[in-house]
C-alpha cells in the first residue's frame, strides 16, 4: 500500500485533465489519442514518472473515447478504432438519435474500459504468458482472421476481400524495413518517389485523408445545399436515452469487452481489429442482425466497449514484453524511456508502486471520462449545429494540423491527405469498401513480416496449418467466419427475392383487379 502516498491531488487532477484534453483531441476530426499522447509527452519529463503517467493514461482513455463523437455525428472516425462506431452511430444521428447513440457509446466505453482494467490487474501475468507463446505463424493467422471477418461486414464479400487486399498492397509501398528483419529495399514505387515514400505512407494522414477529405469531396459534389449540418443530423432534445437499451445486451457488452482486451494484448494488432472483430461477432451471433449498419444500438455497444477495452489489453504486451499493443502505447514507451524505465517482463515485479499507480490512473481516467461525456455530451454534440460553410474549412484545416504534426513537420504527409482523400472518394464512388481497405492498410505491413518470417523459419507453407493447436483453432475461426458470411449473404438474397416476388405479385393482383373494375 506504499503506492497510496504517491496519489496526491495533483495526480488525480492530471488524470482528469488528461481525460478531458484527450476527449477534445479525439473529438476533433483528424486528431487522435496517439497525437494527444505524443504532444503531451515532453510534459512528463517535468512532471515526473507517476504524475506523467497519470496525464498520459488520461489522454489515452479520453482520446480513444472522444473518437466516438465525430464517428457518430460526422461519420468520421476520430480514431482508427472508431471505424465500426460510424456504421450504426451515424445512421442513428441521421434519425435524430445522436445524443442517444453517444450515451450508449459512453456507457459501453466505460464498462469496456473498467472490464479491461480488471482483466489487466487480475490476469496480466497469465495473459502475458499466453501471448508470449504466439509465434509469427499465430500472429499472421490472427491478422488473417481480422481481415477475413471484416469481409462479412461488406455488402459483397468478394468486393470486401478485394478492398482489403488493395489496402494491404498500399501498406507495402516503401521499404521492407531492416528493423522488421527485412532487407531494407524499396518496392512498388519508382526511383523518384523514394525520398517521399521510403517508409511508405504514414497511417494517420491516410486515415484522415480517407475519412476527412473524401467526406468533404462527397459533400462538395452534392453542393452541400442544406445550410446547416443540423438539418441532416438532428440531436434529440429530450435525450431519448434509457438504460433499458442495454437490457438483453449484457452478453454483447461483456463479450466485446473481452474481445477488445484480448485483441489489445496481442502485440501489434490494434484497436481497429478489436472493434471490427467485436462488431462482426455481434453481427454473427445476434438473433436479429438485419438492423446492424443501419443504426442498431448493439453495434455501438460492441464497437465502443471493444475499443475502450483495448486500453487495458494493449498495456499487457507493453508492460510484460516491452512490445506496444497499438500506436498509442508505442508512444507511451517514450514516456518510460524519458524516465529511464525499461518496460519488459521484469517491469511489474521491479516496479510494483508504478504498476499500482498505473492501474489507479486507468480506472480514475475511465470514471472521469464517463462523467464528462455522459453529462456534457449535449454540449460536445453542439459541433453539429455549425453550418457546413463554417464547418468544412475548419475540418480541412484541422486535418492539415493532424497530418503535418504527427511526424513533426513533413509536408508530404499533408499531400498524402489529398491523395488518399481523392482515393477514398473514388473508392466509394465505384462501389469498393472503405473499411476493409483501411483495415488492410493498417494490418498489411505486420502481415507481411509475420508471413515471411514464418516461411523463412520453417521453409514450408504447411506450417500455417500444422504449427500448433492454436493455429488450427484460428483456421477454424477463419473458415467459420467466411462460411457464416456466405450463408448470411444467401439468406439475405433469398429474403430480398421473396420480398420482391411478394411486391410484384401484389402489384399484379392490384393491377388485375383494376382491369376487372374497368
Amino acid at each position, binding site marked *: 500500500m506504499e503506492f497510496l502516498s504517491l496519489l496526491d491531488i495533483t495526480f488525480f487532477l492530471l488524470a482528469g485533465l488528461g481525460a478531458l484534453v484527450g476527449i477534445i483531441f479525439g473529438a476533433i476530426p483528424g486528431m487522435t489519442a496517439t497525437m494527444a499522447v505524443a504532444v503531451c509527452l515532453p510534459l512528463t519529463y517535468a512532471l515526473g514518472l507517476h504524475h506523467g503517467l497519470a496525464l498520459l493514461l488520461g489522454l489515452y482513455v479520453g482520446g480513444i473515447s472522444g473518437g466516438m463523437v465525430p464517428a457518430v455525428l460526422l461519420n468520421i472516425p476520430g480514431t482508427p478504432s472508431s471505424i465500426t462506431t460510424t456504421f450504426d452511430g451515424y445512421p442513428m444521428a441521421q434519425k435524430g438519435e445522436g445524443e442517444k447513440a453517444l450515451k450508449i457509446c459512453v456507457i459501453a466505453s466505460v464498462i469496456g474500459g473498467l472490464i479491461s482494467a480488471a482483466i489487466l490487474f487480475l490476469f496480466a501475468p497469465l495473459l502475458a504468458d499466453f501471448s508470449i507463446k504466439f509465434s509469427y505463424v499465430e500472429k499472421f493467422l490472427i491478422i488473417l482472421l481480422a481481415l477475413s471477418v471484416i469481409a462479412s461486414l461488406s455488402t459483397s464479400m*468478394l468486393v470486401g476481400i478485394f478492398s482489403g487486399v488493395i489496402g494491404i*498492397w498500399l501498406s507495402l509501398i516503401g521499404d521492407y524495413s531492416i528493423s522488421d528483419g*527485412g532487407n531494407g529495399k524499396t518496392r512498388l514505387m519508382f526511383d523518384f518517389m523514394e525520398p517521399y515514400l521510403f517508409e511508405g505512407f504514414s497511417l494517420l494522414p491516410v486515415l484522415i485523408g480517407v475519412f476527412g477529405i473524401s467526406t468533404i469531396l462527397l459533400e462538395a459534389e452534392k*453542393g452541400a445545399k442544406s*445550410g446547416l449540418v443540423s438539418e441532416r443530423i438532428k440531436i434529440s432534445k429530450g435525450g431519448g436515452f434509457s438504460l433499458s437499451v442495454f437490457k438483453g445486451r449484457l452478453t454483447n457488452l461483456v463479450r466485446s469487452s473481452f474481445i477488445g482486451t484480448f485483441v489489445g494484448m496481442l502485440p501489434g494488432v490494434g484497436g481497429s481489429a478489436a472493434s471490427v472483430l467485436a462488431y462482426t461477432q455481434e453481427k454473427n451471433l445476434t438473433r436479429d442482425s438485419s438492423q446492424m449498419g443501419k443504426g442498431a444500438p448493439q453495434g455501438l455497444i460492441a464497437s465502443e466497449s471493444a475499443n475502450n477495452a483495448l486500453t487495458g489489453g494493449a498495456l499487457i504486451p507493453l508492460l510484460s514484453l516491452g512490445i506496444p499493443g497499438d500506436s498509442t502505447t508505442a508512444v507511451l514507451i517514450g514516456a518510460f524511456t524519458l524516465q529511464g524505465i525499461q518496460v519488459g517482463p521484469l517491469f511489474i515485479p521491479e516496479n510494483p508502486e508504478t504498476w499500482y499507480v498505473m492501474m489507479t490512473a486507468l480506472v480514475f481516467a475511465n470514471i472521469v471520462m464517463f462523467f464528462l461525456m455522459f453529462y456534457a455530451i449535449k454540449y460536445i454534440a453542439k459541433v453539429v449545429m455549425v453550418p457546413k460553410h463554417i464547418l468544412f474549412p475548419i475540418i480541412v484545416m484541422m486535418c492539415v494540423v493532424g497530418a*503535418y504534426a504527427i511526424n513533426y513537420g513533413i509536408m508530404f504527409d499533408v499531400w498524402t491527405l489529398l491523395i488518399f482523400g481523392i482515393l477514398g472518394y473514388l473508392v466509394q464512388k465505384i462501389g469498393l469498401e472503405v473499411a476493409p481497405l483501411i483495415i488492410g492498410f493498417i494490418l498489411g505491413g505486420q502481415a507481411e513480416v509475420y508471413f515471411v518470417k514464418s516461411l*523463412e523459419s520453417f521453409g514450408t507453407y504447411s506450417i500455417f496449418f500444422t504449427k500448433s493447436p492454436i493455429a488450427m483453432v484460428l483456421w477454424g475461426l477463419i473458415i467459420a467466419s467466411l462460411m457464416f458470411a456466405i450463408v448470411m449473404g444467401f439468406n439475405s438474397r433469398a429474403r430480398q427475392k421473396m420480398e420482391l416476388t411478394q411486391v410484384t405479385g401484389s402489384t399484379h393482383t392490384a393491377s388485375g383487379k383494376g382491369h376487372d373494375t374497368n
Partner: protein
Amino acid sequence: MESGLSSLLSVSIDFETSHLFFPRIIHWIMAGLFVLILMTKVAPFMAAVKRGERTLPIVGEARDNFRFFGTLVLIVAYFYFMAVVGDMFPYTGYGFLMVSMAFVLLMSLLYLHDWSKKALTIVVVNAIVAPSLAWFVLAKLFTITLP
C-alpha cells in the same frame, strides 16, 4: 505422395529479393479477385448500363461541378501556399496561420448559398478567429509543429 506434397509446399526465400516475396503473392491474389469481380459484378453492371437501367459512376452522375472542383483547387492551393509562405517564416507557424485564413474565407464563401450581410460577417470573423485560435492553442500552448 507425402514427400511430393511436402516438396510442393516447401519454400525458400532469398534474402536479397525477400522484399518482393509478399507483394508478388498479393499481386496474384489481387489479379484473381479482379477477374472474379469483372465476371460477377462489372460485366452485369455494364450490361445494365447498356440497357439504360444504371449509370456509370462519376462520369454519368449529376454533380455540382463548381463546388466540387472549386474545393479541389482550393485544397491544392492551400497545401501549396502553406509550404511556400511557411518557408518565408520558418518555425513560426505563420504559413499555416495566414494561408489558413485565406483558405477558410474562400472555402466558406464557396459553400455559402445565401449571401446575407450577417452570414458574410460570420464567415469573415470565422476566417480570422478559427485559424488564429488553432494556431495559438496548437503552436503556442502545445508547441505543435505547424508549417
